[in-house]
């Protein structure tokens, strides 16, 4: 419940800012009217950028992969004479 209250207050603050910006004509009017769409597009872009950057920096740990394969082989060898069927070979 607390998390959605936080998000709601953030949204209310941003819309209050936008309405305030519309009332006092510091920015030209057509600009201020386009701001919400601009922010939504910005947010989508930012999410996509974070996904791309995370993909690029994802660590693969090749040594751990080799150790894992060895562990799998060992486990299969241990379980097979005890009658447990774990293989798909």
């Amino acid at each position, binding site marked *: 419940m607390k998390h959605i209250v936080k998000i709601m207050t953030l949204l209310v603050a941003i819309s209050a800012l936008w309405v305030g910006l519309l009332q006092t004509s510091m920015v030209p009017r057509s600009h201020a009217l386009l701001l919400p769409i601009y922010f939504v597009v910005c947010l989508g872009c930012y999410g996509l950028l974070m996904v*791309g950057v995370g993909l690029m920096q994802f660590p693969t740990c090749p040594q751990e992969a080799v150790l894992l394969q060895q562990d799998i082989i060992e486990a299969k060898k241990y379980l097979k004479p005890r009658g447990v069927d774990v293989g798909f070979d």
Partner: protein
Amino acid sequence: MQLADRAVGFLLSFISISIFTYYTFWVIILPFVDSDHFIHQYFLPQEFAILIPVFAGVVLLCFLWVFVGFVMLKSKKKKA
């Protein structure tokens, strides 16, 4: 394997950055430029700056809801 991941990640970030710069230019900078500058011919008329994101958002929502309905129908058919 790792190279394919990196290529896809780079492509995604490139697309997102280019969309961001194009849209920023379109919405914020272009109205301040005189209307007979040559740069205006690289950008579509300003009404499209609103239509295209709204249209894309509506298409995305439709796609999501159709997908949810499809999955629900399939699960109901399997149970019956």
